[in-house]
């Protein structure tokens, strides 16, 4: 039941402003999709001078693109696994015990996303240079893991806080050891949070460019490839196709992760 004293209907002005904001947020991406069809190779002329589907085929043939895509997928996978392990451990520690410096742990984990990416990037590069560590696949992964950990950490910690502590106590009272309790009680509870956090970390790593420019050396990830095209456009139509591909590849995990966390908070609302 709604009371009439607070008008439950939005004014037209508010609706229009909200709609405008939403359009501003999403319309530009559709423009890229449109441009994948342009036959124009040298400019971004609008309206499009015609329509062609040939660039998808051209992009498929490009060896350099396949190599960049494979590298990006590999980096994202390893960085996500590292983030899942480190993030869950940190969340478990912060949840189960209060200790001196607990706030500092959260602060330290948030720092890589609170500070501009260039700070992380140049700091890592200088450190690598100072210790004569050559750039490699692993230096990219190390860079990505620093900011992926916090994503998993936040998701898992939020789930821990919603979990009923009595379940763990019951499990222990019934004679399960900590490892069994983790396997049969805690893990099923946090599984979707891990999945959501992991998928977001994957998406974050897959299209990261700022830190990567500093830690990649000669290797080219897909975002680095796009970035080089932004500064020196050579294959405009292929870049459009790649941009669309990146958008679609990251859309799936992001969308699923959002649905997962939305669902778990829905059921949570019912039990409260």
């Amino acid at each position, binding site marked *: 039941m709604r009371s009439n004293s607070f008008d439950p209907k939005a004014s037209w002005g508010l609706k229009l402003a909200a709609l405008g904001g939403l359009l501003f947020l999403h319309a530009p991406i559709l423009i890229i999709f449109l441009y994948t069809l342009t036959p124009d190779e040298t400019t971004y002329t609008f309206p499009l001078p015609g329509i062609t589907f040939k660039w998808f085929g051209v992009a498929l043939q490009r060896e350099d693109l396949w190599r960049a895509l494979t590298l990006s997928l590999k980096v994202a996978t390893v960085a996500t696994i590292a983030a899942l392990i480190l993030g869950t451990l940190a969340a478990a520690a912060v949840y189960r015990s209060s200790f001196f410096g607990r706030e500092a742990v959260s602060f330290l984990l948030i720092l890589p996303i609170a*500070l501009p990416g260039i700070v992380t990037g140049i700091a890592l590069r200088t*450190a690598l240079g100072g210790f004569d560590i050559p750039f490699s696949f692993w230096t990219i992964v190390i860079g990505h893991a620093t900011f992926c950990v916090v994503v998993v950490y936040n998701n898992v910690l939020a789930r821990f806080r919603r979990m009923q502590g009595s379940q763990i106590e019951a499990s222990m009272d019934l004679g399960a050891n900590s490892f069994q309790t983790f396997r049969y009680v805690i893990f099923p509870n946090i599984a979707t949070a891990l999945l959501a956090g992991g998928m977001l970390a994957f998406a974050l790593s897959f299209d990261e460019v700022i830190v990567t420019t500093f830690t990649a050396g000669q290797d080219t990830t897909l975002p680095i490839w796009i970035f080089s095209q932004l500064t020196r456009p050579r294959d405009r139509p292929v870049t459009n196709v790649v941009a669309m591909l990146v958008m679609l590849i990251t859309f799936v995990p992001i969308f699923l992760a959002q649905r997962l966390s939305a669902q778990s908070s829905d059921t949570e609302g019912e039990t409260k």
Partner: protein
Amino acid sequence: MLNRASTYLYHRPRLALALLLGPPMIYMVVVYLGALFNLLIYSFYSLQEFTGLIVREFTLSTYAQLFEPANLDIFKRTTVMAAAVTVADALIAFPLSYYTAKFASPRLKTWLVIAITIPLWSSYLVRVYAWKLILAQEGILSWFINLLHLDGVLNRLLSFESIGGSSLALSPIGLFIVFVYIWLPYMILPILTSLERVPKSLLEASGDLGAKPLQTFRTVILPLAFPGVVAGSIFTFSLTLGDFIAPIALGNSKFFIGMAVYSYQGTAGNIPLAAAMTMGPIVIMIVYLLIARRLGAFDAL
């Protein structure tokens, strides 16, 4: 075996804690904080101008270079840009968050939240790229402006020295639009979170006591949502301060902090100066975070 290990750990909570906390903390402290600290040390070194080699001796001369007019200009330009982007984002974000939090039906709300969150995680680089297409001289925005016969107005705007340039993409206006666009989701979400926490009963009480909708908005909703705006501004401000992708992608000729750092360490090979320069955004952000904490922004994160 596992049982015994479990009992052993149960009686030693500190050890259990250390085992949990150890790996993530070792990683973050050694790799991340270690690298940051190393950067700090480098900012006190200097570059031998003739040889281009780094002199590993303590000096403040690199920091002194930051106060040269050219560098001060960069700091000023970037900070002004960050502030303008923050204000614009807050203005665009507020109606959308307000509608989503207080007026949308539960079904619509689920979709709106997803629509708001997806751009937050999706490729930042591709989102910048979209604007290269849109802002291009022969692109869709110019076409649209010509269609509405507004090209006179645009040229007038571009002729101003401080915000103008040879074309929309190359001008600070173009960069401003791109920054507003890419950081907008970071502003919407905290505002949404803080608005959701405003109980409906409070709004009803305000109405029952005779406040008009606009009055309720000004005296109840806005003050309660303010921490969310501050929380969002942490991101929009910080991200704008350090970004170098958008200016480079658009081909902006005026330097911003991120671009300057990027080129100092890259083409110039002057790591000390680049390191000293990154201390700028770090100090600005620490001050900003301290202020934000006093304004209660951390609860809205």
